[in-house]
Every structure is written in C-alpha cells, then in structure tokens.
C-alpha cells in the first residue's frame, strides 16, 4: 500500500456504490464491441467475403447508429462468452443469446426481442418422431449453448440421451454433420434450424416436440445498468417504429419481433 492511500476500514460506512459509468464509457470510447458466434445464420454469420452479417448484426448496427456510437463485431468462442464479457474484450453479447435463469447470474439482459424454441431437427426420412425416440441416437448440440440447458432441464429425456450428445463449437458443423449422416438429430434454436431447413428443402423435418420456449436478449456485463437502460430504450424505439420488424422480414422472412 502506497503511503498516501487510506485503506477503507471494514465496517466503516460502506463506500457508496461506484457510479455506473458504463454508458458514459461507451460514449467516450465512441463504440461498443459485440461478441458473437459467427456461425449462427441468419442471426450472425459470415458472407462470401468473410464479412459478418445477419439479423442481429443489422439490428446492432441500427441501434448503434441511433445511440450515436460505432459498433464492432468480434467472433468469440461461444463457451467463453461470459469471460469475454467480464474481461472487457467485448461489451455485449448480441447473437441469438437466450435469456436463461442461469445466465442471469452472470450477466445482464436487455428486454427480450425475439421468441424462440429449442427444436429437434432430423433427416426427412428419419423414423424419429418424438423425444423418446432419441434414445440411443447420436445427437448434435452446440457446446455451452442454451440448447444444452434446455435439454438438461428436461430430466426424463436428458437421462436417456446424455451419453450420446456430441458437443460442437458451432451449430453449422452439427447441422452439416446431420446432413452428412454422422448424426441422427440436432437440437438447435428454431431461428437457425428453420433457416437451415429452408435452405435444404426436403432434406429435413422438424419434430413437433421441442425443448421449450425461450427469448433472445442482448447480454451485458453485470453492473452495466446504464448501458442496459440505454439499449432497452433504443430497442424499444426500433420495435415501435417498425425498423426491427423490417429487419426481421429481411432476414427471417417474417416478422417475429417480440413486441
């Protein structure tokens, strides 16, 4: 301890909670960094030029514009997302991030903006009809994703399939593997799954059963309340004036914005 510094004594009047400067910091920086899984079409993925594009990307860009700052995109490893956030490498996670109870302990979320399901995709000619049929089948799933959380929550199913879950870093690999015959099913976010199924017509079907409904929200560092408020305000405005719906129609073919 340097000689000039006064160490606060325990039990003394608690230091007032540090003023939340998160929004100010972003403004000072002039930009915020979005962390994302860059193989998660159509929410965030790479085009032919290796540029990151997608629904969430466009949404984030629009929001940034309205907030008067720049936005940068940083591909991250999905299982490191919380740590990337905490370490300050990124400022938000904005890429089909599911709001879950567990994650609420680790980060802040904005208001939900899209409703989503964890669906089960199987080949078109597959005999699999229900969750129960998944027993003994090889099932692809993204590592550290909300899909895993959703499956784990369904105790009954989880117990029969847990030994056959193959964890991929990204969903595109799991889906490709399914198509190639290396897997018999993939559990994935509906938005992504449907996009893939539509791009490969007649090859797949989606089971009627799923692992439950969820919402997407933007994730922020714990404590970044001011930034969260600002984002919520901007997102609400985008929903209200129809911008969000327009973007939804462009990327998802229909308006599924959660108003």
């Amino acid at each position: 301890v340097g000689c000039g510094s006064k160490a606060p004594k325990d039990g003394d009047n608690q230091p007032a909670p540090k003023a939340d400067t998160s929004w100010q910091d972003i403004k000072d920086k002039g930009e915020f960094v979005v962390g994302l899984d860059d193989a998660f079409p159509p929410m965030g993925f790479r085009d032919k030029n290796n540029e990151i594009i997608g629904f969430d990307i466009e949404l984030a860009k629009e929001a940034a514009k309205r907030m008067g700052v720049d936005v940068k995109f940083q591909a991250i490893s999905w299982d490191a997302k919380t740590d990337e956030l905490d370490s300050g490498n990124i400022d938000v996670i904005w890429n089909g991030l599911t709001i879950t109870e567990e994650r609420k302990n680790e980060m802040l979320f904005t208001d939900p903006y899209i409703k989503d399901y964890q669906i089960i995709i199987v080949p078109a000619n597959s005999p699999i009809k229900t969750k129960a049929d998944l027993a003994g089948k090889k099932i692809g799933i993204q590592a550290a994703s909300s899909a895993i959380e959703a499956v784990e929550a369904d105790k009954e199913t989880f117990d029969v399939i847990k030994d056959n879950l193959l964890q991929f870093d990204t969903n595109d690999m799991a889906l490709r593997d399914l198509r190639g015959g290396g897997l018999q099913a993939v559990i994935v976010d509906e938005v992504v799954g449907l996009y893939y199924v539509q791009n490969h017509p007649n090859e797949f079907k989606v089971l009627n059963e799923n692992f439950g409904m969820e919402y997407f929200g933007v994730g922020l560092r714990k404590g970044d309340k001011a930034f969260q408020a600002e984002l919520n305000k901007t997102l609400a405005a985008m929903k209200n004036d129809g911008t969000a719906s327009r973007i939804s129609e462009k990327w998802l073919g229909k308006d599924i914005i959660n108003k």
Partner: protein
Amino acid sequence: MEYIITLMPSMLKGWTVTLQLFFIVLIFALPLGVVMGIARLSHFKPLAWFMELYVWLFRGTPLLLQLLFWYFGLMVIGLRVERETAVYLAFVLNYAAYLAEIFRSGIQSIEKGQYEAADVLGLSQRQTMTKIILPQVFKRVIPPVGNEVINLVKDTALVYVIAISELSRAARIHAVRDDTLIPFAIAALFYLLMTAVVQQFFKWLESRLDYYR
C-alpha cells in the same frame, strides 16, 4: 479435492477416447510408414515420386485441416464415412507420412560400407535389406519414432474439433461450466503421464537394443 473426484468420471471417459485413438493409429501408421519409407527409395521412379508427393502434401499442411477435410470434406462430396473412420484416416495417413520420412532417412543413414560388404559376400538385394539394413534401421529410428509417438499423444487433442469428447474437450467443458482451471490441470497431468510413459517405453526399447552399436 472433492471437486476433482466429481470431475474424474468424465475426464476418464475422455481419456479412454484419447487412448483408443492413440493405439489404433499407431497400429496402422507404423507398418504403413515402414512400407512407404521403403517405397520412397524404390528404383521404380513413379512410385518413389508418388511417395515424395504424398509425404510433401501430408507434412506440409496442418493435421487439423486434414482432419476437417476427411470428416467434412468427404461428407460434402457425399461420401459417407463414420466419424471414427474419418479420424483414423486423417491420423493414420498423416502419421504414416512422418514415419515414412523417418524410415527413409534411417535407411539412408546406413553406411555405404554395409551395402558393399553384403555385396562382396554375395547377398542378394532383398537379403541385404532384410538381414543387414532394416535391423540396423529399426534401432536407429527409435529416438525419432519416439518423438513422433509423443507428438501423436498430443495431437489426439485435435479430434476435439469434430466434436469427439476426448480429454481436452472434457476439460474445456468442465472449465467453462464451473469457472475453474482445475480441469485443464488434470488434463495436463494425464498428457504428461502419457508422454512420460511413452518416453520410458522408448528408453527401454533403446536399452533393449543396446547389445550392439
């Protein structure tokens, strides 16, 4: 400590995957490497050239890329192979290339005098190879082959990328979920153990062949 015990089952499972990959690759790559090493020195030039091209291709590109190629690549062109088959294909073909190079240079390291002595004694080329050259080559290549085998121990971690839950993926999953470095430390210990065992084995092999020099 208790945490470590709860980790063990899944780490051990991952380890089994690693070990299995290790042994199966070795069993196929070693003999293939010998044959390819000899083929590279063949007097039948097209064969020698083909082997040279082969070695160049497989040693000049990352095993990771080869692994992706055999798994997704074959899939993409509609060839259906099991995940395990693709993995073994990638590893065996890659390691055979490295081993071929070792055996080739092992054969070339045998002094000309050995060939000449066999020649003046009237041994045939085949006899010279099997009775004089190869036995000496096997002894000489023990250290570099040992190095490759240690590399294999470590390269098994690569199958990670095609969603096989071997040791390092098991470690990663736990580390991320539980926010701790312990799984990495345990995985590191497993790898160190394996490399140490391999090293000891090759030392022993070397000492076994120490009756001549």
